[in-house]
Structures are given as structure tokens and as C-alpha cells.
């Protein structure tokens, strides 16, 4: 029966790929995280018991959260313009939004370094026109991390928003105004709620990708901006501490999974009008 089902054969390659390249290593990590140095949860106790690890967890969540919020704030007007512009301008905008995908994330992070550092063009320019005397600290801190991450992740917010906005009939907004809502109230009570599925999808994408971010915070951040992915790398690279690194990876995976499920449940409930 199963062997005659065409869908079975069509999804088989993908299932095998995920099984071999994802499930197996994850199981292996899970096992190491609870079996070394001895069987038990000591690695997890270390993570949730020591302030240094809790600090990194908190960094990770707060950087991902701030990045998500900033992406939503900057992405919303862009998506809106894309939907409400003439076809030619729309194509230009889509093109511009996609450009970052064409260059490697490493190159882009280094480019930010060149622009933002003490002797970079921004500081040179500001000093040149006499606005500041000392160079501003634009990089190797939270500001640099957020700038780099928002730039890279913005498209992940813009495109889900765009696809939802493009399907919102403009008559909803008109109807709201006709019924007595000024533009601000029409936006808050009608337009924004209708954008919510796109906003949630975009936010989930950006947040989840942010959680595992590595290169940008490593290059543009300071000592206080270490995120969980970087910590995992350090534990393995510097100390060969596979068990703790494994436990960290599992924490990241479980956290991400919980978030994913929560957002999906929220979207489903909303779809039923609760």
C-alpha cells in the first residue's frame, strides 16, 4: 500500500536526507550531552546554573528579540511601499531587497567593519565636517551587532509581510474610514490585524535565524555580545568540550522548536477567530 503511494516515493529522498544529515547528528548530540562525563543532566545544570552561560542565553534572546523588533519596524514600511507602488518601482524594490543575498554574509560583515570602525568612512565624515571630535564607537558593541543582523535579516521580514499585504484588499481600509475610523484607527483596528499573519511569520523567521547567528556577532560584537552559537563554537574549538557544547545545541534546538510550535498554535487559533 505504502509502496504504491506516489507521494511516498516523492518525499523519500528528502526524508532520507533529513534523517541522515539532521536526525542522526542531533541524536548523537543529545546522547553526548547526557552521557559525558557521566550519565545525567550535569551539563544542563551547568548551563542553567552559571551566570556566564545564563548571560549568553539572555544575550542571545535579547539580541534576537531586538533584531526582530527592528526588522519589523524597518520592514513594514518597505513591504507596504512594495505592495502600493507601480509595477516597475515594485520590481526595483524587490531587487534592492534581494541584493544582500547575493553576497556572502562574511563579506557583508567585514564591509560593515570597514564602514563603522574608528577610521571608517562614517567617523571620518563626521569628524571631517566637525560634528564630532572623537570617533564614535559604532562597532565591537551591541549597536554593530544589531546593525549587521538587521541588514542581513530584513528580507526575511519583508517578504512574508509583502505576500500577506499584497492579498489585503484596499476596500477594507476604505470601509473602515467610511464607517468612521480616521486613518490611524483604521490602520490599528483593521490593517495591522490583517497584516498579523505576515508579521508573525516574518518575526518567527528572523527570531529563529537570529538565535543561531554566529559570524555577525563574532565580527561586529564586543565581549558582552557573545551569543549561544559562538559559545558552542568556543567550547569545541578551544576546549574540545563536546558534552557541554552538545547540551547548548540541544537547548537552542528545543527553544527554537517551542517557539515555532507556539507561533503556529497562535496563528491557528486566530484563523478560527478566537
Amino acid at each position, binding site marked *: 500500500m505504502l509502496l504504491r503511494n506516489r507521494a511516498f516515493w516523492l518525499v523519500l529522498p528528502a526524508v532520507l536526507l533529513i534523517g541522515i544529515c539532521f536526525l542522526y547528528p542531533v541524536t548523537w548530540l543529545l546522547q553526548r550531552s547526557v552521557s559525558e562525563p557521566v550519565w545525567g543532566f550535569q551539563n544542563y545544570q551547568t548551563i542553567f546554573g552559571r551566570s556566564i552561560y545564563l548571560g549568553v542565553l539572555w544575550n542571545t534572546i535579547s539580541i534576537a528579540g531586538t533584531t526582530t523588533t527592528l526588522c519589523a519596524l524597518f520592514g513594514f514600511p518597505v513591504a507596504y511601499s512594495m505592495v502600493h507602488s507601480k509595477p516597475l518601482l515594485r520590481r526595483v524594490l524587490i531587487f534592492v531587497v534581494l541584493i544582500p543575498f547575493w553576497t556572502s554574509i562574511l563579506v557583508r560583515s567585514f564591509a560593515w567593519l570597514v564602514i563603522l570602525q574608528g577610521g571608517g568612512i562614517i567617523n571620518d565624515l563626521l569628524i571631517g565636517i566637525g560634528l564630532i571630535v572623537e570617533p564614535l564607537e559604532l562597532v565591537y558593541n551591541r549597536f554593530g551587532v544589531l546593525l549587521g543582523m538587521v541588514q542581513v535579516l530584513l528580507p526575511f521580514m519583508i517578504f512574508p509581510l509583502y505576500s500577506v499585504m499584497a492579498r489585503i484588499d484596499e476596500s*477594507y481600509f476604505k*470601509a473602515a474610514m*467610511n*464607517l468612521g*475610523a480616521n*486613518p490611524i484607527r483604521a490602520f490599528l483596528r483593521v490593517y495591522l490585524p*490583517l497584516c498579523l499573519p505576515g508579521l508573525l511569520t516574518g518575526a518567527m523567521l528572523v527570531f529563529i535565524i537570529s538565535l543561531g547567528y554566529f559570524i555577525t556577532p563574532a565580527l561586529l560584537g564586543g565581549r558582552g555580545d557573545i551569543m549561544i552559537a559562538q559559545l558552542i563554537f568556543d567550547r569545541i574549538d578551544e576546549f574540545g568540550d563536546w558534552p557541554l557544547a552538545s547540551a547548548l545545541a540541544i537547548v537552542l534546538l528545543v527553544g527554537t522548536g517551542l517557539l515555532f510550535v507556539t507561533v503556529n498554535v497562535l496563528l491557528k487559533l486566530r484563523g478560527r477567530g478566537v
Partner: protein
Amino acid sequence: MTDPILKLENVRKSYGAVDAARDINLDVAEGEFLTFLGPSGSGKTTTLMMVAGFTQPTDGKIALEGKPLDPIPVWKRDIGMVFQHYALFPHMSVAQNVAFPLEMRAVAKADRRKRVDEAMDMVGLAGFGARLPKELSGGQQQRVALARAMVFKPRLLLMDEPLGALDKKLREHMQLEIMHLHKNMGTTVLYVTHDQEEALVMSDRIAVFQNGRIEQIGSPLALYEAPETKFVADFIGETNFIAGRVETANNSTARVRGMGGQLAGALDNGTAAVLAIRPERLHLHSANTGGHDNILTGTVKELIYLGQSRKAIITLEDGTEVVALEHAAQAEITALEPGHSATLSFRSKDARILADV
């Protein structure tokens, strides 16, 4: 007539070099059901949108109850509107949708609930408040849109092709329902449609739009029986046109190709004109019995059985095809077959002579 509730004076709307609407002059009486009828792109929706406030007129004045509407933004106009696809907010329940205009007007919660219930009751949907719009049928959504547009007692109700998305049976049913609602509530209604039958059934008066202008405005009867232009005669109902030139014109009558008719407007002798005659005003005979105002002769091309009536397509000697409609009982007496020669008669007072533009 008392002061009109809505007055449009020389209203024009242009987009670049194109006038979407021009020379719009209109007085709407309190409680009137006025329909804008016309093909798409004729300016009817543009005019409606200017009244609603979504579009600003390029020139001219629109006044509601004597006050110019120009400086008043959409959300302060107190004009209800039913949109083409209803525009019910999909994320709100039916009751929340209907309560929305009251909420915007800061009506107290208890009063709000009472008025929502009344409005839902009015459209026959009591008890449907907790549903989502998408859980209702097309006709029910239509009624919710009506309830939402009327719950705040607007001074004017605009309807933009509100029945376009419904099937024929439901459309006819809703036409009657909207008419009854209009009668009971006494609200002034501006109704946009491209369906001439709908306009004839529902309206007190119809404004026929064409190329951004109002071609003619009048009661359904006046528009059908006394069209003033060839476009109106053609757009409303079916009409036969016989082309020629105006002959022996006087104040109200003239002749075209020797046949008499009522003159629409002042047309001089020699002007290109059509004689317009409705199919049901053409009488078919198998032979010329004499004693008629006007006579046309030709050959029966086709007979179409319609149940209660029969349609005969006759080719005249000059090649013009005309259509005559006969009651089934009369058709039996006439006893014609395709290929037979036939005589058509009509009274001069049933024909209109219109400028051929």
C-alpha cells in the same frame, strides 16, 4: 419639492487629460432611491466615490443637507456604504463588524449591543453575531454589510454594485429585500449598477451614465418609454433602430423615411437620425390589412420561442434587421414561418426620433 438632501453642481473629476466624470448636476431628494446606471468606465463609480469622499472632485460642488462636503474627510461624513465585495473585516465576528461604526463613534457598550441586535434583526440575521464573515453565505454577507452600513443611521446610503457577486435568483431576492429595507427605513440611497433590469426594478429615478456624463435622468418609466438619446434607448431594454434623416419636423413630431415618431429634442430637417421602436410595440401581420400609422415590410428570418412570448427577427428590404415581440396567443393568430414575407405596423406615438450620433 423640498430642498434636496444631496446636491451635485457641475462636478468634474479628471485624471490627467481624461475626464472620468464631468458636468454632473444632480439633486437627490430625501428618501429617494436613485440609481447610477451605465457601462463600466462611464463615471458612475467615480461619482459615487466623490460623494463618499474617497476621491476629491477636480471642479464643482457637492453638498449634503446644504453643507459643502469638500472639507469633510471620509470618516466624518456619516455616509454609509456597501462595497462591491462587502469588505467585511475578516478578523472580526459579524457582531464586531456591525458594532464597528458605533465603536468609532464612542457609543456606550450597552447601547451598542442593543443597536447591533436591532440591525441584525432588521436584516434577518439575529443570532449570527458570533460567526465569522467567511462562515456566512454570499447573501448573508451582503446583509451583514447592509446592517453595518445602516446601524449608525447614516444620512445617505451608498451601494456600489452590491449584488454583483450573487447568482441570479439570490440577486432578485436581495433586490426586493433592499427595496423593502429602503421603504421601512426611509434612508436616501445612491445605488450603482451596470444591470439595467436591476435599475428598472429598484429605482425611484435612474441616472444613465455614459462617457463620464449623465445622459439622462428620470423615472424608470420615462427612461424606457421616452429615451432622449440613442445610447439610452439602446442601453435600457431592447430597441430597433431605423436610420435615416429627419423630415417634416415640427415641435414634437417628425418623420424618418416616411414614418412618424415623437421627436426627442430639437432636430432640424435633414439631420441624421434614428427612429427607435421597442420590439413589443411592433405588430406583426401576415399581410397588410391597412389602417396603420406606419408600415414596414420584410421577410421572416428567424422565430424564437420564449414560452410566454415569441421573438421574430425580420429582415427589412434594405437589409436592416428588426425584432418584434409577440404574446404567445397573438403569435398563433399571426401564423408566420421563416421565409414568409411579413408586414410590421406601429403607432407614431410609440416611436422616438433620436439624433444619430
